[in-house]
């Protein structure tokens, strides 16, 4: 009977632990909302998009430029990293000798483990001055896009590679039997067959890019504006929080939590999209 009690206790303990871990995400949502609430009740939520600027101490809460900044950086990083990532995966899978491919993958996984603050340091000290020589001030949308692209490239390349590895060999063999050239086999068969995996990897990368804080905080200049060119500085939702959180008060602080909520919604959107893709693949 004491055995059964031990089992019951173990069960109860594990159950409690999993309730705790399940509740964290609800807690996060709840607290973001709770801290935003005073401001949400006070002003029309549309003002977060419509206010002409971000001057939270003077009652202007326009988050739109930051929202645009986040999206632009993410889209930009994707435009740079996605083709490169796919090409690298194709290289590793189809063109490189096995040893080189393995070494390359090892290099990619090493890179995916480098912390973002180190990328930020590199961007600030090496990349931004180079861009400044072309067009000041150097810390800019472009710097952010490039550093983020480098950062998410390994994620995209590795998941594209994994997706292509799981394409059944018979497909490629069949295509070869039909007299397809290597290029046609890669672009016509392997990549379309691996598309769900590639897209999931890209969304993963995009999620990482939009949630990234340190890099954009360090290399983007943090000016609140919708940029006219890639050389203009921008501020993202994440950088906005990191920059002002430590001293923000009352409404200002609440506004930062609103931008946190906004960010959370965007990321949840990404998750939902990738889930629906995965569900579709499983359906097939």
């Amino acid at each position, binding site marked *: 009977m004491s055995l059964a009690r031990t089992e019951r206790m173990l069960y109860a303990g594990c159950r409690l632990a999993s309730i705790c871990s399940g509740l964290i995400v609800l807690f996060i949502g709840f607290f973001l909302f709770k801290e935003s609430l005073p401001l949400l009740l006070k002003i029309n939520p549309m003002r977060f998009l419509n206010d002409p600027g*971000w001057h939270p101490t003077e009652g202007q809460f326009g988050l739109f430029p930051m929202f645009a900044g986040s999206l632009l950086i993410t889209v930009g990083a994707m435009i740079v990293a996605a083709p490169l990532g796919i090409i690298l995966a194709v290289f590793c899978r189809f063109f490189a000798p096995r040893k080189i491919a393995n070494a390359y993958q090892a290099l990619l996984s090493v890179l995916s483990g480098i912390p973002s603050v180190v990328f930020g340091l590199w961007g600030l000290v090496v990349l931004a001055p180079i861009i400044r020589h072309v067009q000041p001030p150097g810390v800019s949308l472009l710097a952010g896009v490039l550093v983020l692209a480098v950062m998410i490239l390994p994620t995209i390349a590795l998941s594209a590679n994994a997706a292509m590895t799981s394409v059944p060999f018979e497909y490629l063999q069949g295509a070869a039997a039909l007299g397809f050239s290597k290029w046609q086999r890669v672009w016509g068969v392997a990549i379309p067959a691996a598309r769900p995996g590639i897209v999931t990897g890209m969304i993963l990368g995009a999620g990482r890019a939009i949630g990234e804080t340190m890099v954009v905080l360090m290399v983007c200049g943090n*000016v609140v504006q919708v940029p006219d060119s890639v050389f203009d500085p921008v501020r993202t939702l994440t950088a906005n929080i990191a920059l002002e959180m430590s001293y923000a008060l009352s409404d200002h602080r609440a506004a930062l939590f609103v931008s946190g909520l906004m960010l959370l919604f965007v990321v949840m959107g990404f998750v939902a999209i990738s889930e629906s893709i995965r569900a579709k693949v499983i359906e097939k």
Partner: protein
Amino acid sequence: MILVAASSNLTNKIKQGLILSLSIYLGGMSFAARNAHADPSESQLVLTGSSTVAPLAAEIAHHFEKMHRQVRVDVQTGGSSRGIADARRGLADIGMVSRHLKPAEEHLWEFPIAYDGITLIVHKSNPVDGLSNNEVREIYQGRINNWKMLGGRDAPITVVNKAAGHSTLELFTDYFHLKQQEIRASVIIGDNAQGIKTVAGNPDAIAYVSIGAAAYDSGQGLPIKLLPVDQVSPTLFNLQSGKFPILRPLNLVTLEVPEGWVKKFIQFARSPEMKSIIQEQYFVPRPD
């Protein structure tokens, strides 16, 4: 509103539960056990706030700790607003504020320890040696956007501005009659040091920072140049005589009438022995 009240009631209960379980958990941690003296607030002072005051406060704290071994003084930056907020909420024992208290803040106790000015800095290699108040305005409004227009090199101006909430920003905009909304900046910075670092690394940048911080770093050999404001050079003499136009007090603020270590620290910071330290940091001591 009922909803809010109910939820806060609930959250209080959750909070108590969490704090209870957390403290039990903490009890088990040996690391915490090391610090099991009776009342930690007796021997730890937390100062938060203005990034201008912070280096000075840290230096004073250093000397204070040498005299009182049982006290530990932690200094954290975050802007004057945070100094006020943390002092109000009791997160800090002492807030550091680099401006006068506003009317809404007058329930706090204010203790000036020194004075500081704000000036414009550019890179050492920049040929421009002085700007009129109007030129500064137009630079920050984006109407002057190339050093050529001011007789300098043909290079676009990198305008460095401070993030909202810093008193340096408020003083600057007040003095130059700028509105925060009309400032067209290229880089936004938090701490003074970040502004100095940006200018030191960018020959075409302009920023406004605490004179104390800028003069200190310039003395350390950083390639920056302090510009006069309204033709008054940011020298110690001009600051002391009150001739320099943008002057502000560096305050320590507390919620209650200072007692115990807090009182001792503030007295120490305002004592004549600290004058040399204040001057080493290129700040202006209080007149006797």
